[in-house]
């Protein structure tokens, strides 16, 4: 039997590290967004300086999260990257074909509720999760 020596910093180990890093950055962005959304009302009584600081913090952490996500995707192997790319493509398409009609229906009061951006974010998250799961199972 020809033995293979496992690499020092192998693929699985690198991806695990990147996933953990991404998890923390996502959490930090969620916390920064919550601070920006709720802080003006509950923490600093709508003081403009603090609100602008919270917005700046949210954007800065958001940029960090994007960079970490970009690095995560760059370090995936070619099949995983293909699955991610397909999922992102489907998500972008669904966001466009659902977002524009939702906005139009809101403008003409066809729907009985306000077309909040949160609905679109939820739809995008679900679409990405389902298409990613499908892609992963397809190549299993």
């Amino acid at each position, binding site marked *: *039997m*020809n033995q*293979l020596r*496992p*690499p020092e910093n*192998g*693929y*699985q180990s690198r*991806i695990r590290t990147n996933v953990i890093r991404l998890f923390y950055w996502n959490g930090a962005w969620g916390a920064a967004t919550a601070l920006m959304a709720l802080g003006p009302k509950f923490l600093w009584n709508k003081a403009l300086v603090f609100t602008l600081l919270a917005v700046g913090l949210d954007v800065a952490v958001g940029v960090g999260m994007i960079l970490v996500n970009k690095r995560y995707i760059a370090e995936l*192997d*070619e*099949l*995983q990257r*293909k699955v991610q790319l397909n999922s992102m493509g489907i998500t972008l398409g669904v966001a466009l074909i659902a977002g524009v009609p939702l906005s139009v229906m809101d403008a003409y009061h066809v729907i009985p509720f306000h077309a909040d951006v949160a609905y679109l974010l939820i739809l995008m998250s679900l679409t990405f999760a389902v298409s990613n799961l499908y892609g*992963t199972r*397809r*190549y*299993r």
Partner: protein
Amino acid sequence: MKNQLKVLRAERDWTQAQLADALDVSRQTINAIETGKFDPSLPLAFRAARLFGLRIEEIFHDEDRRSLATEIKKDTYV
């Protein structure tokens, strides 16, 4: 595209996980290549060839190669 990855791996008694580590990809990718669900890129095919000490064409085959050869042979005798 067909390939001999599973046979070559079995000859060396390597697991999919070991081969994945050696080629710096996920185990899922090795499985997808072995089952013909995914064709590797040229750099990955080169890495596999180097690892097994073979030429790329000894590991990966164009599925149409045989049918193309048959067509040529048929034409020759017509």
